[in-house]
Structures are given as structure tokens and as C-alpha cells.
């Protein structure tokens, strides 16, 4: 038995075959620059990246569920609160663990046991200082391209309320975990309702079915609660405990009873299919672009062969196109300034709006504190502050996402205006694998080369989610003091100490105000820094991307010129053979283009 029972299916195989043909063609024409993106496309198809966040209230069995999926005990599991930090699990050829602390510029590599081993569990103070843990692991399930995010549970009394919201945009899918001890609570249902508004796929798992004799009853109650909330879904019953034994003993029957095969099936059809569809779509775009650029020199040579008398003007035309594209690459080109201005406006605008939101939050807190009885209301107030903060951060990331996509579109149209005759339009959006975005610097350089990443076509969805999750983990890590420091614990209402109480009430309010201000300041500092880095990197990536695209075009035009000259100089007796050869190549590429457009329709 393997741990990856995810079916590998047919529809994408055809796309993969075409990409192979494209790689062959690029290679045959000596275009390594065109070959590279196709190789990336192939990798993306074979290992479509999807990010799945596992969320839910604390102690529901989230980490155990992840361990069940990967078939190894990678996440710490404990009877008492275990997961203290957002943990990103993804494939790596060797085991590696990166820890990012709050305020640190780079991640720090530590012994992988840090993330997995209970014995090395960080103390609460240490845990609070950690923003994110990333674990790379040579594991067959992860090798399918799935990135899993284990999250600290929502709802715990000593943790914040806002964090759960951070995952609303996470990933291609959420797995919401609730155990079979009781039907969904009001809190859980509320969470699911808002989650489903933000995440494309929300799956619900009913955990620990081995332990609860009445899980079927609970499942059917949950199902009707979900239906009532407009989220028709049947919670998938799973038992991580049985799964672990089944894998260890190779017991297929027990594995079925564990419910994991069904969960994997649902993951495969509900999540992987979609990312594969996207990957296939993207592969076809890349393929088209490559094929067009391969054709261009061939066409130029053909033309020169067929009408040698027109060779000179044709060459001049090719030369002037090449110059125009070359000019686009120079400093001071219009698209460059559109891009630079776009990002600087974007940075200012998002910052302005974020500050505005925080000002509102400050005012709101002041208003609440005027009348609040902090001995009773602090938990609620601090929860509200965190929630509002989460919403503000989410808004910030959303506007960054949309803003930078918008800039890319503008750049494309500016390039098109300035050089309407570039035979092959530039592709709109660079690849950014943001799940890698958060790893340490040098690795970032490595994987963020215009085509090296394995990401998606936009910052939406998965990437935005991870960014948001990380920023929010940062927010969560900023200390908002709890009841204890505010001296909750009511004083009995004896008359003698009445005045003393009044004085204390005022003191507490003052203290609370300071605590909240400090919290908002800290978050603002953290978020501003992250935002600045993000904007700067996004800008650099876009610039590099468009530069690479332009370099390809220049090379294509140069080769077309050479081909045209070659055609004009071909000895008369060789012409017809060469024409036949080239026409065959064109037919081949025609065929390829026809196939891509047919396949695109069927996706």
C-alpha cells in the first residue's frame, strides 16, 4: 500500500504529451530560452501545486489528520494544546525545517525534530516568538505537489479570536475538522459560513470516529446543520488512529475503515483536478507562445526563399521590428515607468488605507472603553480588536493582489501599444510561488526567476492566503495582554471599597487603552515592513518577467533576420528541397497549434 492513493488520470496526459512535443521542437530549433518555460510547465503538470489548509477549533484532530494524509507523524499531536504555530509542509528532496521568528528578516534552519518532535516542543514563550515553521520532507504524498498547512486551533481561551479569519482566503481548499464528540457548535458553524464565502473549496471532516459510538448520528446532525446554513456537504468521517495502524500493518480493510481513502478521493476530484486544470491551461498558453516564436524565423526564411526579390525590404522590416523591441528593453521605456509608478502608487494607497482602518479601530476601541467593565468584557473586547485587525490585514492583502494584477495588465497593454507588431504578445503575469516567497532570501532568488517557480497565474487564492496567513500569524504573535495583567477577578461590592473599585476601573481602562494602542502599533510596524518587502519583490519580479519575455522576442526577431538572409542566399538548386522542408515544419506547428486550441476547448 502506498500513501499516495491519489489517482493520476487521463485528461491532462494529452496536454503533457503536447508539451513534450513542444520541448522537442524548441530543442530542435536550438531555442533553449523557449524550452525552459515548457519544462517548467511540464513540472507544473506533473506536480500541480495546491495548498490545503487544515483548520478548525483546537483539539479536534487537525494535526492527526495531516499525519494520516502524509502517512508519517510530521505534526506534533498531543492531548493538550499541541500546535502553536502555523506550519507549512511541502515536498523537499531532503528533510529541512525553517523557522521564521517575528521581526526576523530571514528564516533560520533548525533540526527538523523541532517541528515534529514533542520532546522539543517550544515553550509557550518561545512559541509566541515564532511566526511560521516550514517543513520540507521527502514524502510521497507531498511529492504530488500538495502543500499542507497545519494551523493552531481556533477558539482556545488563551489565544486570539482573529486568527481563524486569516485562513479564509488560504489556499485552494480548506479542510475543516470537527470531531464526533458533539454536533457542530454555533461558533464552528459561523466560521464555516464565512470561510465558504472566501475559499473556493471547503471540505468538512468528522474526526476520531473510532472513539465515538454515535458518530453516525452526529454526522447526520452536522449534515442537516450544514444544509441549513446553505453549505450542503456531508462531513467525511475519518479516524487518524485507525489510519496509522492500517499503514503500519498494511491492513487494507482497516485503511478503508479509517475513511482516508474516501478523503483522498475527494481531495483528488475536488482540489487536484482544479489545480491541474489551471496548470494545463497555463501550459497551453506557454506552448502557444513558444510555437509562435519557433514559427517566426521559419516563416521569414520561407518568404525569402519564395520571393528573393522582396528579401531586402523584408529584412529591413524585420530589422526595424527588432530595433523597436530592443528599445522597449532600454531604460526609460514607457512600460518601465508604468510599472514603477504603478507600484509606488499601490504601496502608498494600501498603506494609506491600512492606516485609516487602524485609526478607525483606535477610535472604536476608545469608544468601547468609555463604558466597558473590563473585569467582564476584556475577553470580548480583545477578541474584537483582533478580528477587526484581521479584517484590515485581509483587506490590505486583497488590494495588493488586485493592484499588482492590474499593473501587469496595464504593462501588457502599454507594450502592445508601443509595439503592436510584436508577433507574439507577452504573457500577462509572472510566476510567483509564494509558498516559497517566505523562505529565506537566497532561496527566494533561486525560485523566483521568471520561470523557475511552480506557482499560479496570479497572487489570488493560494498565495494571497499564505501571505495572509503569515501576516496574521504575525498579528497573533503580537502580544495583546490577557485578563490576568488587567487584574480581572472582581472585587466584592462592599461599600468600604467602593471608591477603590472606581479608581481601579479607571486605571484598568487606561491600562487597556495602552495595551490596545501598543498592539495596534506593533502590528502596524510588522505589517508595514512585510508590505514594503512584498511590494518591492512583486515589482522586481514583474520587471524581470517582462524583461525575459522581451529578450525572447528579440532573439526570435534576430533569428528571423538571420533566417531571412539565409533564405535569400540559398543556392537555386536547393530552394525547392528547403521549401518543402520548411513547409513541413510549418505544418507540424500548425498541427500543434490546432491541438492546443482543441484541447483548450476541452478543459
Amino acid at each position: 500500500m502506498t500513501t499516495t492513493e491519489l489517482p493520476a488520470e487521463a485528461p491532462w496526459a494529452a496536454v503533457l504529451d503536447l508539451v513534450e512535443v513542444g520541448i522537442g521542437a524548441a530543442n530542435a530549433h536550438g531555442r533553449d530560452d523557449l524550452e525552459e518555460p515548457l519544462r517548467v510547465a511540464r513540472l507544473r503538470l506533473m506536480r500541480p501545486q495546491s495548498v490545503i489548509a487544515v483548520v478548525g477549533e483546537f483539539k479536534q484532530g487537525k494535526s492527526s489528520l495531516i499525519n494520516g494524509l502524509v502517512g508519517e507523524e510530521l505534526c506534533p499531536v498531543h492531548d493538550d494544546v499541541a500546535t502553536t504555530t502555523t506550519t507549512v509542509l511541502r515536498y523537499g528532496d531532503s528533510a529541512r525545517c525553517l523557522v521564521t521568528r517575528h521581526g526576523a528578516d530571514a528564516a533560520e534552519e533548525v533540526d527538523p525534530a523541532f517541528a515534529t518532535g514533542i520532546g522539543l516542543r517550544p515553550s509557550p514563550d518561545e512559541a509566541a516568538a515564532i511566526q511560521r515553521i516550514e517543513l520540507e520532507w521527502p514524502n510521497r504524498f507531498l511529492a504530488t505537489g500538495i502543500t499542507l498547512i497545519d494551523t493552531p486551533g481556533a477558539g482556545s481561551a488563551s489565544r486570539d479570536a482573529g486568527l481563524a479569519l486569516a485562513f479564509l482566503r488560504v489556499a485552494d481548499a480548506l479542510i475543516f475538522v470537527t470531531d464526533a464528540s458533539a454536533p457542530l457548535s454555533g461558533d464552528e458553524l459561523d466560521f464555516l459560513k464565512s470561510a465558504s464565502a472566501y475559499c473556493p473549496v471547503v471540505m468538512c471532516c468528522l474526526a476520531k470516529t473510532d472513539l465515538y459510538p454515535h458518530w453516525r448520528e452526529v454526522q447526520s446532525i452536522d449534515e442537516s446543520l450544514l444544509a441549513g446554513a446553505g453549505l450542503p456537504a456531508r462531513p467525511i468521517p475519518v479516524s487518524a488512529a485507525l489510519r496509522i495502524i492500517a499503514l503500519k500493518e498494511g491492513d487494507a480493510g482497516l485503511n478503508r475503515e479509517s475513511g482516508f481513502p474516501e478523503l483522498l478521493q475527494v481531495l483528488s476530484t475536488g482540489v487536484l483536478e482544479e489545480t491541474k486544470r489551471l496548470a494545463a491551461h497555463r501550459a497551453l498558453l506557454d506552448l502557444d507562445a513558444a510555437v509562435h516564436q519557433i514559427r517566426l524565423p521559419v516563416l521569414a526564411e520561407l518568404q525569402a526563399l519564395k520571393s528573393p526579390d522582396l528579401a531586402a525590404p523584408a529584412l529591413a522590416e524585420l530589422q526595424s521590428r527588432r530595433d523597436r523591441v530592443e528599445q522597449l528593453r532600454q531604460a526609460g521605456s514607457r512600460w518601465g515607468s508604468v510599472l514603477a509608478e504603478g507600484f509606488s502608487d499601490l504601496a502608498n494607497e494600501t498603506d494609506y488605507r491600512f492606516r485609516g482602518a487602524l485609526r478607525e479601530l483606535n477610535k472604536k476601541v476608545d469608544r468601547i472603553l468609555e463604558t466597558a467593565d473590563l473585569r467582564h468584557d476584556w475577553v470580548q473586547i480583545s477578541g474584537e480588536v483582533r478580528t477587526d485587525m484581521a479584517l484590515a490585514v485581509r483587506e490590505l492583502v486583497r488590494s495588493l493582489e488586485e493592484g499588482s494584477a492590474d499593473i501587469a495588465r496595464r504593462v501588457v497593454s502599454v507594450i502592445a501599444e508601443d509595439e503592436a507588431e510584436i508577433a507574439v504578445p507577452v504573457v500577462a503575469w509572472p510566476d510567483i510561488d509564494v509558498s516559497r516567497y517566505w523562505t529565506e532570501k537566497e532561496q527566494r532568488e533561486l525560485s523566483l526567476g521568471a520561470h523557475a517557480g511552480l506557482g499560479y497565474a496570479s497572487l489570488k487564492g493560494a498565495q494571497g492566503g499564505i501571505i495572509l496567513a503569515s501576516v496574521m500569524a504575525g498579528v497573533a504573535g503580537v502580544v495583546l495582554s490577557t485578563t490576568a495583567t488587567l487584574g480581572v477577578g472582581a472585587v466584592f461590592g462592599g461599600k468600604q471599597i467602593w471608591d477603590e473599585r472606581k479608581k481601579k476601573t479607571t486605571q484598568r481602562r487606561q491600562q487597556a487603552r495602552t495595551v490596545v494602542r501598543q498592539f495596534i502599533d506593533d502590528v502596524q510596524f510588522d505589517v508595514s515592513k512585510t508590505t514594503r518587502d512584498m511590494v518591492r519583490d512583486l515589482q522586481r519580479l514583474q520587471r524581470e518577467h517582462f524583461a525575459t519575455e522581451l529578450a525572447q522576442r528579440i532573439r526570435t526577431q534576430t533569428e528571423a533576420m538571420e533566417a531571412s538572409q539565409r533564405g535569400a542566399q540559398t543556392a537555386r538548386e536547393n530552394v525547392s528541397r528547403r521549401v518543402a522542408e520548411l513547409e513541413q515544419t510549418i505544418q507540424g506547428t500548425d498541427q500543434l497549434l490546432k491541438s492546443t486550441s482543441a484541447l483548450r476547448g476541452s478543459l
Partner: protein
Amino acid sequence: MIPLAERLEVLCQTARPSLPLEAANEIDAALERLRGPLRLAVAGRVKAGKSTLLNALLGERLAPTDAGERTRFVTWYEHGPGYQVFAEREDGELLPLRFERNDDELVINESELPDTGILRLIVRWPTARLRRFTLIDTPGLGSASPARRAAAAGLLAAGQGGLRAADAVVYLMQHAHRSDVAFLEAFRDPSLVDASPVNALALLSRADEIGGGRPDAMESGLRIAERYRMDPALKGLVGTVLPVCGLLAESAVTLREEEYELLVRLSLADPEADQALLSADRFRSWDASPVLPASLDLLLDRFGMFGLRYALRAIAGGEVNTSLDLARLLLEVSGLPALDRALELQFGSRASRLISYSVLRDVTSIANRIAADSEAGRDLLYALEELASSSHEVDELRVLHLAVTGENGFTAQETAEVERLASGGDAHERLGTGGPGGEDTRRLAIYRAAAWRARVGDPLHDPIQDYSCEVLTRSYEAIAAEAAGRAST
């Protein structure tokens, strides 16, 4: 010193004739409680295991339990000479309800009762344990159904049916959820007395499941409870946190010989039993089991996976040889005996004080309500406030609260001293000496009084600390005076 209860009663009797009739009746009902046992509410989120635990405390299966949301109404289990069940409507009318005993379980015909308009159900039962505490079962908090959520919120409202009518609360939680803490905070009544470590206790319920049903699950529960005891979010709210497995406790106190026999037969099917105990589903569909399928269902419901594993192991290992042995073993592991001890320590020994205190609180809220329209009501309110601020028992409870919440900065040793002092037992118990002894008692009390008096007025004190020291000084002076009086007669 005249006890608070007596002073309260005299005060109300005097005021009674000039009060509006309705309020007077309400006050009578409240005073009636001074003669009853402590009223202990069992509260918690939906499916925390409240009804199951209540049955264990009762020693009988009177409260209905189920995997889906079950308890619809606040239900009072009171001691009575015979067997009676009523529904009390909001207008005060009592509707007798039909009920039957089915397989040792009490089944009340409540399905026809409307969801609204019913204040509470009352079950009067001649169970010895109800002499000690009146137990109040409550619907779960935090339900997904809006109607039930609203109803549960209503629980916190003052009045006869609500939780506020309780003198103390046992709060069940499976891990400390934010809403658990919110509830405990809301339970505090800012008007006079606050729910506090003095009158609230938390349980880590269904602790066998928190430990994943493993054989060492309850030990794991102990460690987690220990951590929660120190958790700042809970510290000022509850006296202690204990793990319990209500299901095993209930089964242990109601264990039947047939059930024991069934377990013995299963324990003989040893190697197969291991496979069958892998999961609830496997156990239920154990084909070649030595007992009937219906018996498997029954055992599973009664003991749960943890209980079955535990019991079968104990029987197979020869640790237990009779149903009595088994009941004893399961009871011990369930954590119920520890809970019983904590209940006695925290509520039992200061029951009369807690009751007087909560009656004072309720009468005050009645007076508060009528004070706007009734001269007599205003006078009563004033007198009650006077009483509250001059009652030494109230003062002692306040200091106890201040000490256990850490608000007056007492050391653990000083806090223990306050706990002893506020227990309401005999003089020697309150002093913590071995036994009654007139002159020794007096001398020790004088000595302690002097020690506390010396601390009053310490320049580093805030008024709350001064107040605490003054109260303790007076407590010891009173004990000394009483001992002197006794010695001279």
C-alpha cells in the same frame, strides 16, 4: 455574632407587611431556601456531559442523555418524600408531568411541552444524595440552533429558573474554550456577589476522550487540568479544575450484575477482543463475539471505548473478581471521588454561608426592582445593603475571594488560612488546631488577631489589603470572644 441568615430573615419579616404582595411572596420563596440544601447547578457547552455527570452525582439515571442535543429545560432535582415531576410555567403554575422508569432510566413525558413559556422542570425524588445538594441540570450553551442559543442565554438572567438561582456552579468543559471563559465571566453578578473561585468549580469533562481513549487517558486529563488550574484566563474564575469521566462514574454507581457478567464473557475472548476494541464500529459489529449484538450496543453506550478497554483489561488481568470490585475500580478512575471531595471542601463546608449569601443577593435584586415604586421597597433595599456591608460572614467571603483571586496579594499559606477561616465550621477547625480546647483556642485566636492587626495600616498596603487584614482580625477576635464565653459557662 448573629448569623447572617437570621438577621436576613428578621429584616425581611419586619419589612414584609408593607411590601407589595407579589414581591413579598417572592421574598418568602427566596427565604425558604435558607432551610434547604445548597443548590448546585451543572453548566457547560452543549454535549459537555452535564446530564451524565449529574446522574453520577445522583447515583441514579434520572437525567436524559444522548449524542444529539438533549436537555431542553432547566431541571431541578430536589429531595422529596415521594416521586413527583412538574413543569413550572413562567406564570408560576405547576403542571404535573407523566413519567415512567424504563430500564432504570427516568423517562419524563416532556415532548408535548412548548419550547417557550416553561421556566423549569422539577423532579422530586427520595434520593439520599439530594439531601446534601439540590442539583440543577441545564441545557447546553453555544448550540448551533439560534433558538437554543437564545434560551441558553436566558439561563443567565436572574430569577427562579435561571442559573442565578443557584448557590454554586460546577462548570463542565472539554478544554477551555473561549466561550467557556465568557460564560464564567458572565456568571459573575456585579451587583452584589460575583461568581468566583468561592462558588464555582470547573471540570475537564469526558476526560477519557480528551486522552484519545487510551489506557492512560485519565492521567493525561490530570495533567491538563493541572495546567488549566494555573491558566490566567481561568484562575480568577474557578476554585479548581478536575478531570472526570462522567460516563464511567455513572456506570460505576449504577453497575448491574448482568453487565459485569457480559464483560467477563468478553474478557475471555482475548486476542479477538483486541481487534474488536480498535474502534467503536468494530466492537459493535464483532461477529464472533461471545455475547449478543444488542449486548454489545448496550456495553458500548454504558462504558465507552475507554471504559471497555479499561474494564476488560482489569478483568483479564485478575485485578477484579466481582461486580463490586469493578464498580469500585471504575469509580476511582472516573475521578468522581476526587470531585466529591472537592465539592465537600469548596461548597459543603461553607454551604450555609453560600446559601445565605445567594439569598441575600436575590432578595436584594427583588428589592432593587420594586424600590422605584415602593417606599417600603426602598427601605428594605437600604437595610439589605447595610446588612451586606456589616455582615462579617459576607466580609469573610469577600476576603476569601480576594485571596484566591490573588487580588490582595496574599501568599499561598495566607490564602489557605483564609480558606480555613471562612469554612464556617467549629472554632478549632477554623483555627486549624487538632481539636476543641477552650483556653488554647482562645489564646491562639488572640495571637492570630494580634498578628493581623499589626499588618493593618502598612504604608505599602492599598485599601483592599487593609480591608482584608481588618476582616481577618475581626474573625479571630470573634473566635476568641466566643471561646472565652464558652470557657466561662
